[in-house]
C-alpha cells in the first residue's frame, strides 16, 4: 500500500511525460492521477489502525552488506503529513491546469514527480531511502522554480538549491557515520546515538529545509519567484519534510544531543518566530506576508517538537497540517489575485471585496483561521504547542503567545489591504470574482480547515498510540 502511494504519482509523471498530450489535456491527466492519489490515501486512512505504531510496511533488502533496505511505512503522524502532501499537491496540480502553464507536459509531470518524492519522505523508514526521497524532492523543485519562475528565478533557484544541498550533504555525511556505527541504516532497527556531530549534520539539513532562523536566506526569493502553486507546495508541504525529519530522526535517534541542544534550538525557533512575524508585518505584498508567516509558523512548530513532550509534539503535527493547508490556500489565492491584477503588492491592491463575494469569503475564512482565532484549527494547534512548551519554562510560552498576537496583526493587515480600503490602482472593474473552477480548487482546502477546526482531535489524538512508545523518546 505504502509503495503504491509513492509509486502512483511517479508512474503518473512518466505517463504524463510520455503520452503525447498537450496543454490542458496533460494537465487534466495529471489532475486525475493526483485525485487518484488522494483517494488511495483516503483508503489507507480507512484501513489504518491508529492504535498501533508503524504499519503498512514494505521492506526489501537493497544492499545487504551495509544494512540498507528499502523500508517504508506509516505512523499515525506521518500519515497525516502524507495526507497534507497529497491534498495540497492535488490542488496545486489542478491550479496549474487551470492556469494553463507553458510546456504543460513537463510542468505537470514534474509536479507529480514532486508529489511522489514528498510522500516518499514521509514514509521512509530507512536513512538512505529518506535521503533519496529528500533529495529527489529537490530535482523537480529546481526546475519548477528555475524554469517557470519569475524574473529573478535564476538567482532564486541557485540560492535555494545551494542552501538546501549544503544542508542535505552534511546530512549524507551524518547518515554514513550513523549507519556505519550502528551497523544498520534502518530507522526501526538502529539504536540511539550520542554523537553531537552526527546530530548536528542532520539538524543542518532540517534547519535549512524548515527553515529555522538563521538558515532562512533562501526562503523569500524562492517563495516570491516561484509560480504560486509551486510556492504553495514549497511552503505548505516541503517544509513539513523537515518536521518529519526532525521528529523521526533527530529527536527519535539522538536523545542525549537533543537534551543538550534543546535550549539553543528553542532559542533559534523563538527568534525565528518573532523575527519572521515582524517581517511579515512589515512586508509589502501578499506573497511576502505568506512566506514570512510560514517561516514564523515553522518556528512555532519546532518549538512544539522540541518541547519533547506529547502535548507539544501533537500540537506540532496538528499545526503542521493546519499551516500547510493555510499557506497553500493563501499562495493559491495570491496566484489568483496576480492573474487578475498583475501584482500582489498591497499598495496597488485594495477594495477587492466589493462585487467579489466568493473571493472575499475564502480569503477572510483562511485569514481568520491563520490568525488562530479561538475555535480554529490553528488555535488548537498553537494551544497544544504552547501548553507543551510551558512545561519547559513559562517564558517560552509567553513569547510564543506574544508572537501569536503578531500573527493576528499581520493577517488582519493582509485581509484589509486586499479586500477593504479604497480600490487599488491595479484593481480594475473587469477583475472578476473567483471562477467556479478556481473555487473548486480552493474550497476543498478551506473545507478541510473547517473540518479540522471542528474536530482537531481527529489528528491530534491519532498521531501516536496511547503512549508513544517507539518513535518518541
Amino acid at each position, binding site marked *: 500500500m505504502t509503495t503504491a502511494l509513492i509509486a502512483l504519482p511517479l508512474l503518473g509523471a512518466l505517463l504524463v511525460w510520455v503520452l503525447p498530450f498537450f496543454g490542458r489535456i496533460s494537465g487534466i491527466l495529471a489532475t486525475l492521477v493526483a485525485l487518484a492519489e488522494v483517494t488511495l490515501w483516503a483508503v489507507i486512512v480507512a484501513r489504518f489502525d491508529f492504535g498501533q505504531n508503524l504499519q503498512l510496511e514494505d521492506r526489501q*533488502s*537493497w*544492499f*545487504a*552488506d*551495509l544494512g*540498507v533496505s528499502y523500508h517504508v511505512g506509516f505512523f499515525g503522524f506521518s500519515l497525516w503529513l502524507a495526507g497534507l502532501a497529497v491534498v495540497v499537491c492535488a490542488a496545486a496540480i489542478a491550479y496549474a491546469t487551470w492556469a494553463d502553464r507553458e*510546456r504543460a507536459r513537463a510542468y505537470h509531470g514534474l509536479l507529480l514527480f514532486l508529489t511522489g518524492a514528498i510522500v516518499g519522505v514521509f514514509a521512509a523508514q530507512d536513512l*538512505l531511502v529518506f*535521503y*533519496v*526521497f529528500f*533529495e*529527489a524532492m*529537490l*530535482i523537480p523543485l*529546481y*526546475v519548477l522554480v*528555475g*524554469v517557470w519562475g519569475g524574473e529573478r528565478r*535564476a538567482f532564486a*533557484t*541557485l540560492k535555494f*538549491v*545551494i542552501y538546501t*544541498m*549544503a544542508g542535505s*550533504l*552534511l546530512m*549524507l*555525511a551524518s547518515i*554514513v*557515520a550513523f*549507519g*556505519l556505527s550502528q551497523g544498520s541504516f534502518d530507522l526501526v532497527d538502529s539504536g540511539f546515538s550520542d554523537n553531537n556531530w552526527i546530530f548536528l549534520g542532520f539538524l543542518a539539513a532540517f534547519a535549512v529545509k524548515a527553515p529555522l532562523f538563521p538558515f532562512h536566506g533562501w526562503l523569500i526569493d524562492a517563495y516570491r519567484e516561484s509560480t504560486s502553486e509551486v510556492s504553495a507546495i514549497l511552503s505548505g508541504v516541503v517544509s513539513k519534510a523537515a518536521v518529519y525529519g526532525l521528529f523521526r530522526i533527530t529527536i527519535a535517534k539522538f536523545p542525549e544531543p537533543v537534551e543538550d541542544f534543546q535550549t539553543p534550538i528553542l532559542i533559534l525557533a523563538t527568534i525565528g518566530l518573532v523575527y519572521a512575524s515582524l517581517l511579515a508585518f512589515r512586508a509589502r505584498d501578499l506573497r511576502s506576508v505568506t512566506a514570512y508567516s510560514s517561516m514564523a509558523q515553522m518556528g512555532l512548530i519546532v518549538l512544539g517538537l522540541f518541547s519533547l513532550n506529547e502535548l507539544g509534539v501533537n500540537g506540532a503535527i496538528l499545526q503542521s497540517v493546519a499551516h500547510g493547508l493555510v499557506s497553500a490556500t493563501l499562495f493559491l489565492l495570491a496566484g489568483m489575485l496576480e492573474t487578475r491584477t498583475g501584482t500582489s503588492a498591497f499598495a496597488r491592491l485594495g477594495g477587492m471585496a466589493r462585487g467579489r463575494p466568493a473571493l472575499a469569503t475564502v480569503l477572510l475564512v483562511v485569514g481568520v483561521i491563520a490568525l488562530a482565532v479561538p475555535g480554529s484549527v490553528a488555535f488548537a494547534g498553537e494551544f497544544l504547542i504552547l501548553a507543551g512548551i510551558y512545561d519547559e519554562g513559562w517564558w517560552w510560552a509567553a513569547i510564543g503567545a506574544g508572537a501569536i498576537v503578531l500573527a493576528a496583526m499581520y493577517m488582519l493587515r493582509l485581509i484589509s489591504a486586499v479586500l477593504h480600503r479604497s480600490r487599488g490602482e491595479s484593481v480594475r472593474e473587469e477583475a472578476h470574482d473567483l471562477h467556479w473552477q478556481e473555487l473548486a480548487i480552493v474550497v476543498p482546502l478551506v473545507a478541510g480547515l473547517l473540518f479540522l477546526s471542528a474536530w482537531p482531535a481527529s489528528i491530534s489524538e491519532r498521531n501516536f498510540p496511547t503512549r508513544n512508545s517507539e518513535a518518541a523518546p
Partner: protein
Amino acid sequence: MIDTPTVDWLALSPTLALLGAAGVALLAAVIGPEWFRRAFAGFVAFAGFVTAGVLAGVLFERSPGSERLLNESMTRDRWGALAAIVIAGAGALSVLVSWGEKRRDHSGEYYALLAAAGGGMVFFVGASNLMTLFLGLEWFSIALYIMCALDTHRATSLEAGLKYLMVGSFGSGILLFGSALVYGATGELGFASIAAAGANEDYLLLAGLAMIIAGLGFKVSAAPFHMWTPDVYQGAPTSVTAFMSAATKVAALVLTMRILTVAFPEQEHLWTVAVAVIAIVSLAVGNIAALVQRDLKRLLAYSSVSHAGFMLIAVAANSDLGGKALLYYLIPYSAMSVGSFAVVATRERELGVPVTLDNFGGFLWERPFLGASMWVFLLGFMGMPLTGGLIGKFYVFSAAYRAGWWWLVVAGVIATAISLYYYLRVALAMWTRPEPGLRPAIAGGSPPRDPLLVSAVFLSLIVTVGSFFFVGPLIDLAENAAQSLPF
C-alpha cells in the same frame, strides 16, 4: 629441453579478442574499398568489444581465486576481469557513439585503434609485473595519442594529440623511472615479489613508489597531474573523449589499487596518505576550475578530474569496502561519462561548432530523449537519487569513514556541494531557449538522425539508473572482485 610455460588462453582471451578485432579492422582499412571500410571496421570493433566483455565474464566466473601466470607477469583474478568487463562495455558504447562521426578519412583505422586501445587496457588491468604494467600502459596510450590527433583537419585535434603525447610520455617516463628504482631496491619486478622482498624503509623504494603513484596519477588525470586533461578532452574527437574519460579511468584506477595493495602493503601508512592528499587536491582543483568553464567538454573534463578524486578516496581507504566502492563507482561513472559525451557529440554534429553553455540552450526541447538523458547523467555526476552516482558516493564515503578518515568524507561532501553549481548550470541551460543571436545555424538542415548513438545513450541511461535500483547484485560482483586483492 626447454620448459615452455603453459599459456592460460582464457586469461588472455579478452585481450586477444580485441587485438584480433584491431588486426582485422586494420586490414580492412588497408585493403577494403572506401565505402566498405567504416561499416566493416566499426562492426568488427564492436564485435571485438562485445566478445571481450563476454570472455571477461567467463573469466570472472571461472577465476574464484587469484592466480599468477607466466612467471608473475599477469594475474588472473576477478578484480581484473570485472574491470575488463567495464572497459569492454565502455568500448562497445564508444563504437556506437563514433559511428555518426563524419570522418573524412582514417575511418577504418579509427576503429582498429579503438579496439587496440581497449585491448591494451584489458591487458593492463591484469598486469602484475612492472614490465607488463609499462607495456600495457604504453600500448593503450599510444593508441589513444593517435586517436586524439586523428582529425587532422582540425588544429585543436592535432594540438590535443601532441599535448597528450608529450604530457603522457612524461608521465610514462616518471612511471618507468619509478619502476627502475623499485627494481633497484628490491631486485624484483613482480608485484607480490616486491612486497616479499621486504625493503621496507629503503629510500630508493619509497622514491620509486612515489614516482609510480605520480605516473599513474597522469593516467587517472588526478590533480596535480591533470594539466593535459581539459585540453585533450576538449580537442580530441568527442567519441574519443567519451572512450578516454570512461575506459582510461577504469584501467588506471583499478591498476593503481592493485599495485598499491599487492606490491606495497608494508608502505601502507605512506601511500594511503599520499593518495588521500591527491584525492583532495583533485576534488578541489577539478571542482573549482569547472566553475568557470563555458565549453561543455572542458567542463566535463574538470568534472572527470573531480571524480578521479572521489574514486581515489576509495583507493586511499585501502580496505575491502574501498575496493568494492571503487569498482561499483566505476560502473555508473563509465556509463554517465560515455553517455554525456555522446550527447555533447550529438549537439556538436548538429551545430558544427564546439558546444558551450550558450549554444546548448533549449536542447531539452529540441531533443527530448537525449536532453532528458543528459539530465540523468548530470544528476548522476552530482550524486543525486535515481542514479548510481549517489550509491557510488555513498560507498566511497562509507569506505572513508570506516577507514577512520572522516575528514575525507567532509572533503567529499564539500566538493559535491561545489559541483552542484556547474552541473546545475548545464542542466538549466538545456531548459532555456537561447538568445536568437547566440544560436548558430544548424549545419546542414535538420539534425542528423543517429540511431546508434541514441541506443548508446539509452544503454548508458539503463546502466546509470539500473545501478541505483540493483545495487545488491552489482555490489556482490564488486565484492567478489575485491576479494582478489590482499586487504
